[in-house]
């Protein structure tokens, strides 16, 4: 059993970051549901999590003067949603689709949160020896 504090939450730590990132993108799709020419965007959550598993994708800062960059969103390759129906103003947002995706994403976020909470409470009970 690996008990390093870094890997305490497993994939859920990263999952929460990308879930909130996705929520933001879906939110901008919905806010721009009536903007002419706006193209709905999204990313494939599964493939993003898969790229995180390959350790070569990460860059470490070994010196405090190294120019740091935000590594987490870099892996996200955003795609354009394929519209189900064409609209006259070039907008590809389907509010209902975005709503469903947003709700699903929120549920998955809560699931990850639940896992993190479960981990914390099980570690706490192990520490207390109850």
């Amino acid at each position: 059993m690996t008990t390093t504090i870094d890997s305490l939450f497993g994939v859920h730590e990263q999952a929460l970051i990308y879930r909130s990132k996705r929520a933001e993108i879906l939110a901008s799709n919905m806010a721009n549901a009536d903007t002419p020419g706006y193209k709905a965007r999204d990313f494939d959550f599964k493939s993003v999590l898969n790229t995180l598993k390959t350790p070569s994708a990460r860059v470490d800062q070994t010196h405090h003067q190294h120019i740091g960059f935000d590594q987490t969103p870099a892996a996200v390759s955003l795609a354009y949603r394929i519209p189900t129906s064409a609209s006259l103003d070039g907008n590809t947002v389907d509010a209902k689709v975005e709503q469903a995706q947003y709700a699903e994403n929120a549920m998955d976020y809560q699931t990850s949160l639940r896992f993190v909470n479960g981990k914390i409470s099980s570690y706490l009970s192990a520490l207390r020896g109850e």
Partner: protein
Amino acid sequence: MSLYNIFDIAGSGMSAQTTRLNLVASNMANADTVSSSTGETYRARQPVFAAVLQNEVSSHQQSAAKSVRVSGVVESQAPLRQEFAPQHPMANDEGYIFKPNVNIVEEMANMMSASQSYKNNVEMLNTAKQLLQQTIKIGQ
């Protein structure tokens, strides 16, 4: 934290839809305003929405999160309704009055669409708020 940006995005959406609703209200209220020349007649007004890139400056990578803003208000170019009504107090020398080019049916549909979009933004904001509240309760 990306979830905080949702407040900005949903807020911008709500404010844009409010502008749209205001213009619909203005159009409908003035639908029967009569004037005696084409220059003075009220014309239907519509907002023009445009996407704004979030955190353009702070972040160098491509950020897809976009809020919305009203980039301008345009007046409808549709022809005004001209009526021959010599007994009307606003009639011009030739006996014509001019009525606005407001299409009431169009405005009603526009109003429903705007209020639906407004509701969507509110729901979105509520969900983001719930998620954040649960997040700050981690480990409790």
